[in-house]
């Protein structure tokens, strides 16, 4: 094994693994402090997330959202952009999906309506990212600041839309009418039932296939197309990109559009997959969770799938903990998420010196 290969194993696998384990260890200490047996809690969490059909369904359903936002953050990151606006882009993307779902002719085939609804999400997500991208590329306003501000703008816009435009007359809650059946993505349990297998009901729907499809697409796009090359080149070295005939300003615009579009897909899972209507804060927390997922998954689609699954476990298992244990609230998930970000992001290379020291004698013996 060459030194390079070994280093990539350390950086790609061992470090993230140790980091996640450390985060869990720290969570264990938090449990001890609040008087909960960490082993007991772990059992509940794992069982709740993976132990039975319904739990697993919920886990995968949460994970689907994290895949979309994780990919969004990762794509931007490869161009050297830190897109904090996944939250807002997911929200406005949902508006795009809802508009298609509400105003399309329900007599059309699902094979036309659903792709159109997905395109609506992609388009609106991209539109919500294009203004910060333009401001970064041509006016020098920092993308972190503008995307954060656009999250707030998105909230305000959506409240206005839901209260004044999309709310059904006479309805007391700010939400849209139900989407026509034709735009509903089938639930996985229904699909299984169609083949004669009965599994427990859960919100898991075919969006998970959409998530897998886009993970593949992002991987192919970034590493196997000339545009992906241009994006990565710009992210690594602006000067070299210009030298190579790449226009970094255009790259910023294009990349942010792709990033926003991916975040806009959260609504596919939440709106046409599960809730079948547009409502307030359906996107809550997934945009920011996506940052952690991308960090943990090292901005690679495979890593993101794994990290999103882990976050799905935390979300579902956390809900189970809240339900089972008296002195644990669902916010424990936020604590765990924070610890994961701390150890995977902030202290990314914590164990590197130790691992390198461990590696030294192996290298010397070669």
């Amino acid at each position, binding site marked *: 094994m060459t*030194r390079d290969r070994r280093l990539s194993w350390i950086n790609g696998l061992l470090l993230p693994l140790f980091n996640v384990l450390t985060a869990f260890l720290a969570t264990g200490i938090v449990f001890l402090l609040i008087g909960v047996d960490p082993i007991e809690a772990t059992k509940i969490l794992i069982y709740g997330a993976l132990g039975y059909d319904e739990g697993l369904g919920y886990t995968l359903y949460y994970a689907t959202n994290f895949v979309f936002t994780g990919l969004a953050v990762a794509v931007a990151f490869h161009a050297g952009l830190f897109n904090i606006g996944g939250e807002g882009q997911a929200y406005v993307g949902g508006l795009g999906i809802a508009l298609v779902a509400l105003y399309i002719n329900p007599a059309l085939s699902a094979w036309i309506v659903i792709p159109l609804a997905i395109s609506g999400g992609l388009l609106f997500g991209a539109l919500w990212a294009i203004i910060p991208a333009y401001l970064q590329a041509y006016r020098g306003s920092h993308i972190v600041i503008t995307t954060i501000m656009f999250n707030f703008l998105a909230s305000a816009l959506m409240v206005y839309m839901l209260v004044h435009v999309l709310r059904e007359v006479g309805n007391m809650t700010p939400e849209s009418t139900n989407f026509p059946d034709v735009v509903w993505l089938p639930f996985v349990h229904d699909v299984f039932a169609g083949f004669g297998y009965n599994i427990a009901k859960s919100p898991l729907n075919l969006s998970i296939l959409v998530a897998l499809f886009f993970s593949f697409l992002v991987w192919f796009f970034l*590493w196997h*197309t000339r545009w992906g*090359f*241009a994006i990565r*080149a710009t992210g690594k*070295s602006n000067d070299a990109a*210009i030298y190579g*005939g790449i226009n970094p300003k255009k790259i910023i615009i294009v990349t942010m559009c792709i990033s926003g579009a991916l975040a806009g897909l959260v609504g596919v899972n939440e709106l046409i997959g599960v809730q079948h209507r547009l409502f307030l804060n359906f996107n809550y927390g997934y945009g920011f969770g996506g940052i952690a997922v991308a960090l943990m998954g090292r901005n690679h689609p495979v890593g993101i799938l794994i990290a999103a699954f882990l976050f799905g476990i935390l979300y579902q298992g956390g809900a189970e903990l809240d339900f089972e244990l008296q002195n644990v609230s669902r916010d424990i998930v936020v604590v765990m998420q924070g610890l994961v970000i701390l150890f995977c992001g902030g202290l990314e290379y914590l164990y590197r010196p130790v691992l390198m020291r461990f590696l030294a004698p192996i290298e010397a013996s070669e």
Partner: protein
Amino acid sequence: MDQSNIAIELIDVDKHFGAVYANDKVNLSVKTGTIHGIVGENGAGKSTLMSILYGFYQADSGRIKVFDKDFISTNSRQSIEAGIGMVHQHFMLVENFTVLENVILGSEDGALISESLDKARIELTRLAQEYGLEVELDVAVEELSVGMQQRVEILKGLYKGAKVLILDEPTGVLTPQESDELFRIFEALKKQGVTIILITHKLREIMSITDYVSVMRAGKMVAHRQTSETNPEELAELMIGRKVLLNIVRTEAKSGDPLLVANNLEIHNEQGIKRVSEVSFEARSGEILGIAGVTGNGQGTLLKALAGILPLSKGSIEILGETISPKRPLNPQELRNLGVAHVPEDRQRMGIISDFSASESALLGYQNDKEINQGVWLKRSLVKANCESIMEAFDVRPTNPDLKSSNFSGGNQQKLILAREFERDPEVLIIGQPTRGIDIGAIEFIRKRIIKMRDAGKAIILISVELEEIMSISDRIIVMCDGEITGTVDAAKADEATLGMMMANALPSDKKITEAQL
């Protein structure tokens, strides 16, 4: 009580990284109050050796004595205490701090910064007088020239009580005048009993300034010489282990039609400052046009404009049938498609992408080529195969397209860039600093390749800070000073003195006209 006059003594120092011996039983003794040169190709182990002295690395075995005391350093602080100061190739200065603040950085005593500053001011004034190292103390470092910044680094070392100063490639970033100034400082330091270790691969510097010289090759110390008893040819041979041709034999140029004609160019740099004005010249096929000048006199800006990176403010460039003007700019991509290759001045930041694999760095600028793209699909296997073949053609080592670009030595990185630009058979080549900071073996190889392209009928524009390089491979030389052309000379008739005068724009005006008409 000096029993001996040896400042630093290394006995059988070993240091290896994995299976690679960076230093293999190295012995060295440096006499107090002398200037001791250490030469060797890139990767010969010079920098590792000095890093051991400065406490960045620990030797695996062997003994080190500093002023006759056994010395083991695990961090730079211990080395500083032992009296060793180091001036790195890339300066370790806080750009927006003043000179004074930079000097006390790391040796502030007490909680209040003003006390340290006052103390340092007195001490620095003394040092400046003693060694002739005048620097304005209250100016931010970013406002100083590179030469001045280097003085600050030297002052930093002296302020911390260094009796031995190690300088790593100190003239790499300096103009010839600044280098001369630096050598004058060396002499002054030597007179005051400071020992100087000079790491370089420029043999001319070794010959002109050092008292002793040690040669390293492949981690081993291969020879120690008294400078007065050796010559550049012998040192070059010791460095690379065989005889080298420092003067490349070449045939007469068969120059043909002009392929690039620049008319009255005016160019502003990235910051919008006018760097080039009223520049006109032509580059003909089968000819190398050298552009000489002290760094920062507009050559770099001109190069970027010719490559399409910077727009023109005035004038026009006719190039292979197209005309570039302020109203009709061409971007680097369009110029490449036209047949213009560009080897950038800044290898690390523009030429390659350090984090990318060699095959991806070898793709930069050509990512849209039809041969490697099938629809949307960029065929990586072709990219890799292509990289492998150009690596073989240009003897890039190791021949591994998957290796990270930053893991290649400077010479091999440069060869990879040249391979990328040369192998697509361009008509016009714009080459900046082809051999800066790389070892002699690679220099010879690269210069030969450039001449080969010339003989194949390409028009070549060469910019270099090495006057020797310009003189030895160009056919025609234009000299720039302050953004304008101050002379055009036939290379065969050029001499260093005249070029030097032109570079300083100090030639009597009537002579300037005659030279320009050549």
